[in-house]
């Protein structure tokens, strides 16, 4: 049973919560912490900086601020409080094809 009590990686925690909340058409959760080693916010855990790309119908009717708020709410105060940085790219189902990344 030991394996079951092991702490879930934060990447999986984020993915699970967003899957449940939005049933997204597209979801990518990337741990970018290694790119920020030694920067402010790096606590040595290797789980400080994340980037999420999500596309879901639920965002279609929402403005930019409301979209991010919806994601923050789905993740919950505790999880958001535990991570240092969360980059978000949020698309509604009707949004045009994403631009090339800057």
């Amino acid at each position, binding site marked *: 049973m030991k394996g079951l009590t092991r702490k879930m990686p934060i990447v999986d925690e984020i993915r699970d919560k967003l899957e449940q909340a939005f049933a997204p058409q597209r979801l990518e959760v990337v741990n970018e912490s290694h790119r920020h080693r030694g920067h402010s916010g790096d606590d040595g855990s290797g789980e400080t900086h994340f980037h999420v790309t999500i596309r879901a119908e639920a965002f279609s009717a929402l403005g*930019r*601020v409301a979209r*991010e*708020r919806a994601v*923050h709410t789905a993740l919950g105060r505790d999880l958001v409080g535990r991570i240092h*940085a969360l*980059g978000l790219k949020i698309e509604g189902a009707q949004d045009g094809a994403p631009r090339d990344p*800057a």
Partner: protein
Amino acid sequence: MADAQEQIRQTVTDNDVVLFMKGTKSMPQCGFSSRVAGVLNFMGVEYADINVLADEDIRQGIKDYSDWPTIPQLYVKGEFVGGCDIITEMTLSGELDQLLDQKGVRYDKAAADKIRDANA
């Protein structure tokens, strides 16, 4: 706590554009704050920079004020516009120009176009 809320309200009321950030506009201390300050600096927007690292009450207070868990936070004419991702996207899409036009805030349109050209 109430004091911090009142102080924040006063600051975003008294200044057309306010950026709550980690560090200052000339010496940002976080990559996300640095990105937004860099955009505003380059676009020649006049704004007040509030360093949340200098005041723990403001650092927590601004998150409560906007119900937004992260910093930086940009306010235009008292209204919360967004954090780093939103400001970046709005800059590249031209929505930030539109917002500043609407609110009567001066900025260098050619510089904004230059940012978009460089990221096209």
